[in-house]
């Protein structure tokens, strides 16, 4: 792992188009600003992990999904 020291308002470059800037340091919290191209998703790690897990649990081949029962849809009156 690469370890760098930065102060508030200083940045690091990842590749040639991702910029991570330290905006503020207060106690044990650091506020970061991230500029990245559209093809790069930026998530908090724990949120990414939960989305990844949920997507992997949901994904199956359409053939397999065809065998799984669909939940009952509420009647329009209940919506």
């Amino acid at each position: 792992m690469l370890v760098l020291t930065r102060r508030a308002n200083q940045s690091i470059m990842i590749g040639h188009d991702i910029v991570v800037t330290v905006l503020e340091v207060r106690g044990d919290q650091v506020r970061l600003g991230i500029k990245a191209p559209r093809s790069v998703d930026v998530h908090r790690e724990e949120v990414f992990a939960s989305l990844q897990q949920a997507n992997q649990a949901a994904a199956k081949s359409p053939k397999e999904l065809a065998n799984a029962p669909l939940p009952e849809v509420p009647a329009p009156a209940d919506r």
Partner: protein
Amino acid sequence: MIDTDLTPDTELVEIHFAAGLPGFPNARTYALAPWGSDDSPFMMMSAVDDVDVGFVVVTPWVFYPDYEFELDASTAERLGVIDPEDVVVVCVVTLADRAEDATVNLLGPIVINRATREACQAVLPSSGYEVRAPLARAA
């Protein structure tokens, strides 16, 4: 107010995720098609280049009429949406052996730009919405 219709005149729509989906970084293009009976709110979102990857998705408001969120500026910018009317929202369903055990991901809705078909899985970290919200109504 977000319009939930997905271009009703088109049976099959291809959408493109510039960043893929968390857990599926390589599949970028998905086909969306109606799923289930005629007036079903469910759709199949299947990876165009991978026959093994499909997601059942649903219009969230059918099950959660009060579902709402604010699209953050960076997501809106990435998708190039200016007007809420440009946006289509679906949520990923996890089906189970028993219909009543199915869940829906309300934390990470899939947001689609209706005009460009650019899509991404947004995330609503401070919304309190669950990744596995039940789809069956408690009796």
